[in-house]
């Protein structure tokens, strides 16, 4: 290759690099969050099933990227452990429709709290991973490189939300990605799409016209376990105090 050809190559290459960098720079303005309205969740579990189908998560009770916790509170200020009854929905079989759940929760305040990876801005799983298999995207999503993960399970231990698990077939850890493959194409995450009541809303909080921006402005939002300083990207409307704890 002579000098002229080399310069041509460089001249052709630089605008392409600038374009890619420009695209990335544009994307970095986005800041994805999910707003969950606890008052709207009816515990139907459609989000759980949609997530499992979309993301190839086994239909196993113990393995879920997202799940719903049902709470039934006896007193206004629960003191004893038995004052709060908790059940978990993470498969298509809905325990909230079970006769025993209905019987034991009669007369109590009941509500459902959908949970998933919080995509923390200061994510413990990213900090502890020895091989950088966990990383942040420019728009704030915490992703997992399954080709790099060595399966040490430190991220499972470090996550205060219990949002990570080991995929039994892939032999690496797995968690919610906000359906990153969908949102990059302008689609909604599977759980958001499946929710019949609109309890889950996803979007760019930096976009003032987005629904999440409006919800954050108009409502008091809370995050789970704020005391650990993880700065979650999953925001809750109408969350009871002891769920936050």
């Amino acid at each position, binding site marked *: 290759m002579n000098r002229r050809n080399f310069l041509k190559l460089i001249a052709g290459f630089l605008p392409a690099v600038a374009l890619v960098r420009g695209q990335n720079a544009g994307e970095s303005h986005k800041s994805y969050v999910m707003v969950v309205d606890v008052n709207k969740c009816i515990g139907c579990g459609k989000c759980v099933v949609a997530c499992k189908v979309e993301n190839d998560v086994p239909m196993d009770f113990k393995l879920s990227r997202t799940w719903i916790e049902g709470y039934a509170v006896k007193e206004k200020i629960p003191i004893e452990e038995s004052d*709060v009854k908790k059940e978990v929905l993470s498969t298509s079989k809905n325990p909230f429709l079970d006769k025993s759940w209905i019987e034991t929760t009669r007369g109590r305040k009941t509500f459902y709290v959908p949970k998933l990876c919080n995509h923390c801005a200061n994510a413990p799983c990213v900090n502890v991973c020895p091989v*950088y298999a966990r990383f942040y995207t420019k728009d704030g999503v915490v992703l997992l490189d399954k080709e790099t993960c060595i399966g040490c399970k430190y991220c*499972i231990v470090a996550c205060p939300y219990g949002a990570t698990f080991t995929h039994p077939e892939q032999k690496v850890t797995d968690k919610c990605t906000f359906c990153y493959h969908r949102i990059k194409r302008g689609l909604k995450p599977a759980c958001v799409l499946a929710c019949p009541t609109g309890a889950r809303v996803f979007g760019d909080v930096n976009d003032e016209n987005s629904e999440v921006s409006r919800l954050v402005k108009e409502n008091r939002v809370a995050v789970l376990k704020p005391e650990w300083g993880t700065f979650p990207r999953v925001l809750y409307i109408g969350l009871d105090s002891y769920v936050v704890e």
Partner: protein
Amino acid sequence: MKKIEFIFGSALLLLILVGALGILQMHTHPVMPIEPFESAEGIPWRLLVALYVFFVVSTTGFCIIISLGEVFGFTKLEPILKECMLMALVTILVGLMTIALDLEQVMRGYFAIAGHVNTTSIMFWMIMLYVLYVIFLIVEIWFYFYDDLIKQREERGLRGLVARVLTIPKASETKDFAKVIGFVTVFTAIIANSNLGALFGVNYIPLWHDPLLPVHFVLSAIVSGAALSVIGVYITDFARGVKIEGERYEAIQMLRVILGFSIVVMIFFTAWKFVTKAYPNSTLLSREAALPFINGEFAFNFWVMEVAVGLLLPLILLAAPQIGRRAEGVFAASLLTVTGIFFLRIDHVMGGLALKLITGMSFPSPVYHPFEIMATIGFFALTILLYYVVYKLMPMEVGE
């Protein structure tokens, strides 16, 4: 090979095979799928991680005992240093093998060396420090054994061959070098060990999150190292048909003092750890983490195995003059201590993870899968077999 050695070796190989089968089953079938804590009961780090901690903390203990004898002037320990060095090497190698085989993707371990690493991860530093420790330990052992290896060169057979290969590089003033390297090794071992303590310092797990945990790890390393040294030396001499007396008896008595003193400090550490965590005005999570040990699922492990078997009974045996002055008495106390330490590791790893995160959540009880138990037995058998092989090949009895 004597008949008894053949039977002993075959039995160990059989147990290793059982362990290998356990590991194979764990990796080829999802026998213990790990689940999100809050959506189901589950403990991600289990028996093999506890076993790893047991081995690597023990190796630090050996290293501390070696350095006391070699570097810090506890000359009474010199007659048993060779055994301690081999046991330190064997335990670290088996320990690293344990944690490697607990990884879901063990073949990707090369990331740790290939540069795809996260330097903010304590686990990365754990790997680096233990690899460094192994290198230093091997160099220290080589220097320490060099003079005896020279003598062993004259022997025929495998022992002679090993000695001739190991003495290809030439060295002089090896004992002085061994001292210097010994200091570096123990320094690395203590840093690696306290780093392991820091690895468990996950802030939302109140049983683990404790600034004294790294110090506690070093302290328990001394307990573990002293007790395992006694066990190793006693069994070695028993197998050789030699009565423990003279200098080796004095060494055992020195270990008795070290063990007794470190057990007393350990009792204080354990007591105050749980008093501060279970105190009525501690945080809710802190109390919930401590109560399973006091009167919950881990109460038997804690009160019986850790406290009674691991701390109080050995202390009584060591302190009682008629028992403590006999090598058998120190051996029995050490055996009890190591049993307690093993349960301490299990309780620390699994008990730390099995806490209620949210009021109303059911408590995961400590259950051990048969494959885990098989693997654990296999790793113990491998440790004994490796020690036996290395002992046979190295110049342990030259000059005696």
